[in-house]
């Protein structure tokens, strides 16, 4: 079956693009941050040892969470798209364990290639990070960027391990009991745990960290991330709720609106929107509160480290989540070629199919942006209380507006472009493929 797996990769590389891209970017980011530890190994405290390790652990930690999430979700989607091929293999006599070996084999092969391709990119990114730390004076300019065993180990190790675990999980679903439903109770339990952890961090921030200045960021930042993940796991429920609330509005659009309300729910696409909005909004406003509170006071030396770090992390996560969002949407929409074709055969024009997709996109974006806003409050409110003594931040909503606009733009572009590609050509051909 490993041979089949490799043939699949060579025959249809396009089907693995999404998985490859997320593994590649994840590995590159992890290598970049881990390489700071390589750099730090020969550096003493005066030259900025602590700056390097802090940046590496905080930035790397965030990336770890996001990478695990992105690789798992793209891989699961990529495998779900192939139920036809899997059914075919089963019909010619492939057993469950054989299919499992094939799927896991593919996942590991993609992860290996992606990690290898990520090495040069991680090397350059690592240099850029050290350069940033040079510029802000946190690390002595005499310190040269290194790229060694820690970077390679973390990059390859995490990507391979993540793909392996995701592959095994996806294969169990695919090879196991055919169309068994996902386990909502487990998912909801996980969501509750993450939300509780987030709430716990938020309470800690507002109580234990009250008046501790910039140190409150540690717990405040975490609170938002855990809450984002918790809410992202509740995406199906949130999407249902938003759909129910907005249904009178969507219905105004006639048949496309009705189809958008009845169609299969794309809750997998809500997750990246929610994570992006939550983490970006939370971090930007937290840093904003910090900047205002710190204005005119003397700060501990690492305050600037943290500021640089926050913005670097927001930038990286934005890029990464954007790619994950586009991947998810493209995979989810391309999968629906047949559905679109059937709608067209029933009398829908291309414009009506596109309108339906746009309305679905609206529901996804509203759910993701609102969920992200709620998650961001887990960071912003307690931090504002602890740092500035006021729960509701004294900040303009413009930054949130920009984050939301980016989310809308990304969702709309990815959805509509794939939808348009999926309805190209005659519907009769698309039904058969």
């Amino acid at each position, binding site marked *: 079956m490993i041979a089949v797996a490799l043939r699949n990769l060579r025959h249809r590389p396009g089907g693995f693009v999404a998985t490859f891209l997320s593994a590649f970017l994840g590995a590159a980011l992890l290598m970049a941050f881990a390489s700071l530890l390589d750099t730090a190994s020969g550096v003493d405290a005066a030259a900025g040892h602590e700056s390097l390790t802090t940046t590496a652990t905080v930035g790397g930690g965030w990336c770890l969470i996001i990478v695990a999430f992105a690789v798992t979700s793209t891989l699961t989607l990529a495998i779900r798209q192939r139920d036809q091929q899997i059914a075919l293999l089963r019909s010619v006599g492939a057993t469950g364990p054989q299919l499992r070996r094939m799927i896991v084999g593919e996942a590991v092969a993609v992860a290996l290639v992606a990690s290898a391709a990520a090495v040069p990119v991680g090397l350059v990114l690592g240099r850029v990070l050290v350069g940033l730390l040079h510029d802000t004076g946190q690390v002595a300019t005499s310190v040269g960027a290194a790229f060694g065993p820690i970077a390679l180990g973390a990059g390859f190790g995490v990507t391979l391990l993540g793909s392996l675990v995701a592959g095994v999980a996806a294969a169990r679903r695919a090879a196991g009991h055919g169309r068994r439903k996902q386990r909502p109770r487990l998912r909801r339990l996980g969501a509750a745990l993450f939300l509780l952890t987030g709430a716990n961090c938020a309470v800690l921030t507002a109580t234990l960290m009250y008046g501790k200045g910039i140190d409150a960021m540690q717990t405040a930042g975490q609170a938002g991330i855990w809450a984002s993940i918790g809410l992202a796991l509740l995406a199906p429920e949130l999407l249902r709720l938003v759909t129910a609330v907005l249904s009178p509005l969507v219905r105004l659009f006639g*048949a496309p609106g009705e189809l958008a309300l*009845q169609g299969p729910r794309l809750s997998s696409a809500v997750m990246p929107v929610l994570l992006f909005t939550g983490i970006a909004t939370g971090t930007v406003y937290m840093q904003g509160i910090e900047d205002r509170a710190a204005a005119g006071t003397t700060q501990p030396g690492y305050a600037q480290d943290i500021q640089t770090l926050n913005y670097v992390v927001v930038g990286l996560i934005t890029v990464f989540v954007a790619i994950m969002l586009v991947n998810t949407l493209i995979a989810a929409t391309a999968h629906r070629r047949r*559905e679109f074709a059937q709608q*067209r055969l029933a009398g*829908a024009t*291309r414009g009506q199919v596109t309108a339906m997709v746009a309305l679905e996109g609206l529901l996804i974006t509203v759910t993701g942006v609102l969920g992200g806003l709620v998650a961001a409050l887990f960071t912003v409110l307690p931090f504002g209380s602890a740092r500035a003594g006021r729960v509701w931040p004294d900040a303009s909503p413009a930054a949130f507006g920009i984050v939301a606009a980016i989310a809308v733009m990304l969702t709309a572009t990815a959805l509509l472009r794939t939808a348009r590609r999926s309805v190209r050509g005659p519907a*009769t051909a698309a*039904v058969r493929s």
Partner: protein
Amino acid sequence: MTDGVSLDSLYKTYDGGVTALDGVTAAFPAGSFTAVMGPSGSGKSTLLQCAAGLDRPTGGRVFIDGAELTATDDTAMTKFRRTRVGFVFQDYNLLPSLTVEQNVVLPLRLAGRRADRHRVREVLDRLGLGDRAQDLPERLSGGQRQRVAVARALVTEPAVIFADEPTGALDLRSAREVLTLLRTVVSGHGRTVVMVTHDPVAAAYADSVLFLADGRLAGSLQAPTADAAAERLAHLGDRVGAEA
């Protein structure tokens, strides 16, 4: 105009130079049930798709219910089909996320028309699907799904119904039910039915059979029996060979 569908020297050449239709002229009288038969690759599915406005012929003209299909872009073709044509496919093409009733009214809703619930119920009742209206297609048998597809094709009251191997995926009993239903569509509702099939038994339900070979007409048969249709089909190759 007494023709439900008429085709005037249709040509269809695919990219890469494969000729699927090589000058087909044919008329399907209004209120008739015609089967189109031919070996694999004879162009019968292409003929159906061009005649139904699902695909554009490379040359020639198509008239449905007296109106010429002149539309060139996809949206205009869709709008042309909506009012005149209904479809039944081998693999049903029902939307899995919609209930039986929602599937049936979908063409009306897409055309921006109100669905008359009573009429829809009546049609479903008549097809023996009255109690399945709220079920999803995955809970129905193949024969039931195909009857839903026929109900969906009928709901816009089109002049012509095109069926592409409608019994290809059905067992004998379900196939008989669906064919009898198509027969009723003609005799009871006065519609024109054009059905592509490779099955002589299915063809025997039609008023006449049109044979295709290598993209050209290769004769016809009135009031066909299954044996006669099978016989002609079996010898289509001889004729084409003899002509060449």
